[in-house]
């Protein structure tokens, strides 16, 4: 009976369909923006450039998980259960980039 449960939250099938297609165009649009930005910012070395791409990636991920994987319509509890552990990954990534950078300094600058 999950599906009936879901239908409580969502609208009619045609609304659902239009939402899916809307998401598709958004994803496609962001991918195109990604590529264009890549060439626009090619000679830039600043840190914020990486952040631009990462944020765009996270936005795309939001749409995939939210709409395609139906997370937007699930209970908040499930959402937090799945999304919050990702904090550990972010922590891990941050530390490993710092450490990689430190290795870089030890290796090439000393």
């Amino acid at each position, binding site marked *: 009976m*999950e599906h009936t449960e*879901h239908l409580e939250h969502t609208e009619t099938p045609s609304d659902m369909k239009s939402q*899916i*297609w809307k998401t598709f165009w958004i994803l*496609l649009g962001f991918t195109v923006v990604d590529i264009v930005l890549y060439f626009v910012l090619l000679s830039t070395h600043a840190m914020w450039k990486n952040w631009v*791409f*990462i944020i765009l990636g996270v936005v795309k991920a939001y749409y995939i998980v939210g709409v395609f994987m139906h997370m937007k319509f699930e209970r908040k509890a499930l959402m937090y259960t799945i999304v919050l552990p990702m904090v550990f990954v972010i922590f891990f990534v941050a530390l490993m980039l710092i450490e*990689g950078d430190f290795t870089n300094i030890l290796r090439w600058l000393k």
Partner: protein
Amino acid sequence: MATNTLTTNTKFTWGGGKSPFSVSYGKLMMWIFLLSDAFTFSSLLIAYGFIRYSFLEPIRNTIVKPFDHLSHEFVREMGEKGLFVKEHWPSPELVFNHFPFIHGVHLPLFFVSLMTFILIFSSVTMVLAVEAGHRMAKDEVSKYMFLTIIGGAAFLGCQAWEWTTFIGEGATLHGNPFGPTSFAALFFIVTGFHGFHVFSGVMLNVIIYFNVLAGTYEKRGHYEMVEKVGLYWHFVDLVWVFVFTFFYLI
């Protein structure tokens, strides 16, 4: 029996007797598995990040414009210009600049954009199949499932072509004409592990597709199985978003 338990008494979510998340245990298990798999991918991407950061920044090339003509000695020339050296990570747009059937033209990241498009599109057909499942529309489910399988297979084909091209240029697990050997090794392991997921996703989709055709879920009364493989399929798409961002863009 008790078919209405989920709709009654939603206030009392954690009280036992039903799911606090109001999803079936099967779907919950798929979510948990995906969470765990996300950590596997993260570990590979973290390894990538660590090794990438322990090298010097890519030397970006702004001289070679898209649609410039490539000679066969492109790689060597770039190497001579000092763009591919052991200490610096290569700039991806100089590495991934080929397109099937178009020879000798510098088409940076065009092919990988196409691959991304294919994968996103197959995700859309998947979610349409799931939606059709909610309406118990067997024909539509089978149509969209079929399209998803085609999309997945196309993506795998693209990846095979990209690998072949890359290997043809001399990249191996322990050699890389574009600079650090780690670049090629990481490329193969990360895209390979993702490709393996796509492959298993396609296999799962095929099984489910035949079950749909056989009317298994029609008899069962719901298409939850399609939802579950759908979750897996979208996850594969999700991972690609990050592989694309980190490997090709940054």
